[in-house]
């Protein structure tokens, strides 16, 4: 049993609930970050990127490469504290991921402007396969590389019976920073240009906005968010380093954007938290039934929630309803 589990076993039911709630919020913040990336790319370029999971895995792998395999910042700065080394590596990895995102946009997506949405989505599936195979090859058969995160399995606080692992706090703080940064970004000159392009591409171009640059920027932003999500998804207790499954973890953020609405930034965040919290809470309270429901049924909760939501609100909580006309 992990130290987390051992502490949890002694906790009272309210404390258990609160602990699980924070667990869910932390998971929700990972989903929210991943979903934000999807939505930003979709809103500005009308592309539903199935390559998101692969980009997340690329980001996580780069961090693992810098910290664990190459010991890259540590090699040049001997006395650097571990946390700082990790953060520097993460920043570089995230920047590298944004370059990957821009390259994908330039090579594969730009020639497809004006083509059916489904065709472009299929292209991103192709990209996903390519990136994922390269990552699998680097990891080796069933292999995993630890990220060497500063938040180990023992790094947790006990606040009046509520157990809070520090990595959860880091995830929640990160999503808050990201959301605030995005809100501020959308008020800058470039941010307004981006919103204008998303609203009406032709009108925006008539105002002198370069739609191509906005597309590149959207993919860069999306890739940055994907990489951040991928990094947190590979840190224990969510994942044990980068594995072949890291890319599939990101696909679980799809339900979040469906619940929030494909084209709503706000919806992505809300959807992410709804999925995260319900996955953890339902998983916890139905843990006794895992014999009948099968091992790992918590991974299904996002998809089942999504199906239920779709039947009630096909365009999500905040999505714009499509007007059908001939």
């Amino acid at each position, binding site marked *: 049993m992990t130290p987390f589990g051992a502490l949890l076993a002694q906790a009272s039911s309210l404390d258990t609930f609160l602990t699980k709630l924070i667990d869910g919020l932390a998971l929700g913040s990972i989903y929210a970050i991943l979903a934000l990336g999807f939505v930003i790319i979709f809103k500005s370029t009308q592309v539903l990127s199935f390559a998101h999971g692969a980009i997340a895995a690329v980001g996580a792998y780069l961090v693992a490469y810098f910290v664990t395999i190459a010991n890259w910042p540590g090699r040049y700065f001997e006395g650097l504290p571990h946390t700082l080394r990790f953060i520097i590596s993460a920043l570089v990895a995230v920047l590298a991921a944004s370059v990957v995102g821009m390259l994908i946009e330039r090579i594969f997506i730009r020639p497809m402007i004006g083509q059916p949405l489904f065709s472009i989505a*299929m292209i991103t599936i*192709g990209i996903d396969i390519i990136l994922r195979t390269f990552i699998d090859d680097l990891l080796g058969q069933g292999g995993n590389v630890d990220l060497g995160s500063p938040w180990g399995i023992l790094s947790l606080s006990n606040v009046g019976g509520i157990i809070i692992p520090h990595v959860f706090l880091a995830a929640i703080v990160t999503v808050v920073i990201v959301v605030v940064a995005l809100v501020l970004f959308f008020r800058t000159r470039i941010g307004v240009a981006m919103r204008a392009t998303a609203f009406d591409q032709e009108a925006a171009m008539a105002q002198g906005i370069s739609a191509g640059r906005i597309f590149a920027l959207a993919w860069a932003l999306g890739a940055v968010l994907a990489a951040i999500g991928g990094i947190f998804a590979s840190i224990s207790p969510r994942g044990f380093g980068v594995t072949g499954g890291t890319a599939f973890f990101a696909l679980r953020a799809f*339900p979040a954007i469906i619940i929030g609405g494909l084209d709503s930034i706000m919806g992505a965040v809300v959807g992410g938290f709804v999925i995260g919290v319900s996955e953890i809470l339902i998983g916890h309270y139905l843990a006794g039934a895992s014999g009948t429901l099968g091992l790992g049924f918590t991974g299904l909760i996002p998809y*089942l929630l999504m199906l239920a939501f779709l039947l009630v609100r096909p365009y999500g909580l905040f999505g714009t309803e499509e007007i059908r006309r001939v």
Partner: protein
Amino acid sequence: MRGRPLLHVDYESEQSLFPTMAQKVILTIGALLALSIPVGVVPGLKFLASPGWLQILVIALIFMVGAAGLNIVTGMAGQVSLGHAFFMGVGAYTAAAVSGHPTEALWGLELPMWLGAIAGGLVAAILGIVIAPTAVRVRGLYLAIVTLGLVFIGQHVFRNWNQVSGIPELGREWGPFQLALWDIDGPALDLSTDGEWFGVFLPHEGKAFIFMLVVAGLFLLLSKNLARTRIGRAFAAIRDRDVAAEIMGVHEAKAKTQAFAISSFYAGVAGALYATFLGFLPPEQWNLFLSVQFIAIILIGGAGTTIGVVLGTLFVQLLPRLVENFTGFLEEQIVGETWLAPLADLIIKTGEGDFGILSLAAQGPGLSIFQANTILYGLLIAAFLIFEPLGLYGIWLRIRNYWKGWPFTY
């Protein structure tokens, strides 16, 4: 009307399955050539008569049935489905429960294969009908995500329903690949032992090939025929503009339900035959990659066309073998130290520390043959969509149009 294949003077000729004489001739020659493959008499196709190649071809024929199914829902009716692997899995496990050998931990009724395949198709079709209402409720990319969820839900169920699917990551055994009317021990058509048919010796893969040729031909013909029926025209109307179709009196919900039901039936039959032919499969087989493979087949072949299904399946299924042969060829160049050796050495990785993209070892750095194939799938999907959205069918159209006016440009 000779020489003017596009001039129709009655509805019958316009609607016929194979409108021109050339198509009928090509089809007949193609069918005869295909039938002769396991015998190995036609020069140039003799190498295909080996059991290894025949096995690949049988699987390709089974995939053709599945791809024809996805073509109905995605190509004809325009409903994006990433859930094809799920329906194939349903068909396969229904077949396992019907025709498999029962043990203490496994279900199985030991009925003949054809019953298993049809039951698999029917159960998959029923599930398709259950799923179809979501396709009425949600459209386009939303539907793609829903069907993606279906694959994950299916994987979970297959992994955990051990009476049907066997041990996770190991799997279970299916019934024999035999065409028996009722009694498995006395099959009407013996497909699983080598032997003579009409005085010609055939390996059992060869027999399976001929059997599957008939089955796949039947399914392809039915799907081609579907396109010109009332149902098929309703599909096309829904695909091109669903609101307009509704205004013309096409019942949208009904048409979509029919599309999903027929498509899932095809998928179920294909899944059942695939699993029965291979005999032993893990529950992880029915994953997203399988769905993507079928999408790739349709996109590479040309969505909405039957000839595209055939070309796409052959391309996607024979590609791994070609890559394998190519790597083998490069290796021979290095060993034989021919003039191609330096180039080959650049491409493949022969040992530790050697530069190369392809690796001959299954593990370790350097892409294995399987990984190289996977990357090729990805690249091909992207390349076809960017450069030739009509797929191989589009390339054929271009070649045909070029020769139509030859030697004049137009």
